[in-house]
């Protein structure tokens, strides 16, 4: 059951409009990380990518609320709701994380730290969203 819901969540998250923006943003991020190597650029791109994930979550705000409602209607437990929402939002940062991953291959020492911060922030954000923080 949980596996089924997670798979459906992934499919739903991929089809929502916010995902398209995230993918486009990660393409521009790729260009940046390979063109510029300054520490300041890295800090700013990190902040921007976090903002982008928040923005894409907000653009799909109604979809997420309805998705949670539907899960409620079919009798999903709190744990299921939490997992589904976390998967929905974390998938947004996946493409951005992949871009940082490709930058690691270029052996830039600060990138792993940035990637680590990014993932931690995304997890915290997922928690906030699930508890009704920004929606």
């Amino acid at each position, binding site marked *: 059951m949980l596996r089924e819901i997670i798979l459906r969540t992934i499919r739903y998250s991929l089809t929502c*409009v*916010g995902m398209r*923006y*995230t993918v*486009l*943003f990660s393409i*521009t*991020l790729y*260009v*940046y990380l390979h*063109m*510029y190597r*300054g*520490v*300041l*650029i890295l800090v*700013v*791109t990190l*902040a*921007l990518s976090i*903002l*982008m994930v*928040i*923005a*894409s979550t*907000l*653009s799909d*705000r*109604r*979809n997420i609320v*309805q998705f949670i*409602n*539907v899960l409620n*209607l079919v009798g999903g437990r709190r744990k299921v709701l939490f997992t589904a929402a976390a998967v929905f939002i974390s998938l947004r940062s996946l493409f951005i994380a992949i871009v940082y991953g490709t930058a690691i291959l270029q052996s830039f020492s600060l990138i792993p730290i940035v990637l680590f911060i990014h993932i931690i922030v995304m997890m915290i954000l997922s928690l906030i969203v699930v508890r009704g923080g*920004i929606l």
Partner: protein
Amino acid sequence: MNVFYPHLILLLPILMIFTVIFLAINKYRGYVEEEPIREVRLVSPALKIVKLLFSKTISSIEIIIIVVSLYLLTIMASSIAFYTYSMKTVDLENRPYLFDVAGVGNTISIIDKVLQSRYSIVIIQVYRASAFNVGNETLILYPLLIGCNRNVVLLDNTSMYIEMLLDLCGSLEADNVVVLNKDLGVLAREVGLRGVKYNSVVVANLKPLLDVELIPGVYILHSIGSIGGETIKLEDINRVALLKISKDNIDVLCKDGCDAKIISLYIDGVYEKVDSLESIIDEYKDIFDYIIVRHHNRGTIYSSTVIPTLESIVGLLVLFLSSVILLLSISSGLIEKLGYMVDKLWSIGISKEVYWASSVLTLIIIFSITAIPIAISCYIGWLNSFGLTAYLMISITTIIILSSQLTRKLGTVSNLPQRFNATYITESYVDVEKLRKCLAQSLHSDDFFYLSEIEVLENSRYFVLRLEMMYRRALSTIASSEMYVESHDNLWKYVIEVDIWSIEEFTPREMRYIKSLALSKVYGGLTSCLERSS
């Protein structure tokens, strides 16, 4: 790394400004509506709307995210901008060897820096003519000031012109000496110069200096540039007065400021201790408008006029693209909020045009206020002009995108919902129960809808068939259809109405599509049942 810290410091005032605005908005929230009316004041309703919109939008998470990302993008634009010195190569073949590095400046104010730098010979062309009285005549002469470095100990392979300039420097030991061309000089010596401080005349043959060019268009003697490929320069050597470079001379000749060209020539190997050419180039780059470096027969001109690199331009374009993506994703939430407000304002007589104009004005005010920290940072020097350009570009795009989306949103506000119904009139009568069974059967194995409920409500005059169908291709969308059956004399009238109820987010187009599909299914089912039974 040294540019990194000022940007971090910049974040602090930005955060402070936001905190102050946020606190102010929170404190005065609802101020417009709840203020008791003490006196009658004529306030434009548009301004009231702007005030209301401002207080509602400035504290919304969307605007905060937009503004924060704008600041981040501005800092990024400022830090990715690289300038490069413009460069040009000229051919110096068949020209006398005059320098290894030469600097040319077009203002007299740099003279102190020039005299402190490492040079072999400095020439100042003063473009303000001075009057010299020779006998009974007054001659207008153009002063050319020359100074040579005293540490010059060695000169190899240089041209005769350099030796000539060094000889002239030797003649100009005292402040009151003037070197004139031989014809004029002899006359001046005989008659004597009057009324000026330069009373000691040295005579020399200056004619060889007349056509000496450093690079095409730049002469040792006065030249003011070229028009139509022809250089405009001093043609008469008797109009030149050579003087020594000294503070007194410059003060006398350029009392209230004057146009002057300063040329500094550096010849490698003139010092006892040989300096590297790179260090000379670095030194000259900060002083002169342009410098010329000679490599054998080629000269490279480096200008201190900066131009942006290709990398900066590409970076700026990508940055602009990412800002548009960020904006598009965030704008829907803000537009939704603004659209929600227009529904309420519309009912009290505010037209859509007034609302649109007020919204755009509010956005302009918000972005003008948030531009203040950027402008201050640019003024101080933390951000460069690229940052300001990026801010203006992105904020204008933001306003355009938001206003166009708002126009689209407002366009759909007042549209009346389209009714979905169909009427079927027939002479044949079918029993209600039979019709119910027939419809249930026809919709039983439908690809699009799953018939979840069908019931009959009967009355003495008419009856109603109610169908509830679930749309199979969505999570929770129900099409509810009602069929009113009435009889007029011998005719039977079937009116079908369809309504959609959904928990999902559908666009109006998708909604219409599902409605039409449901209506066609019910209508099709009804006609086939009626035809089959007749």
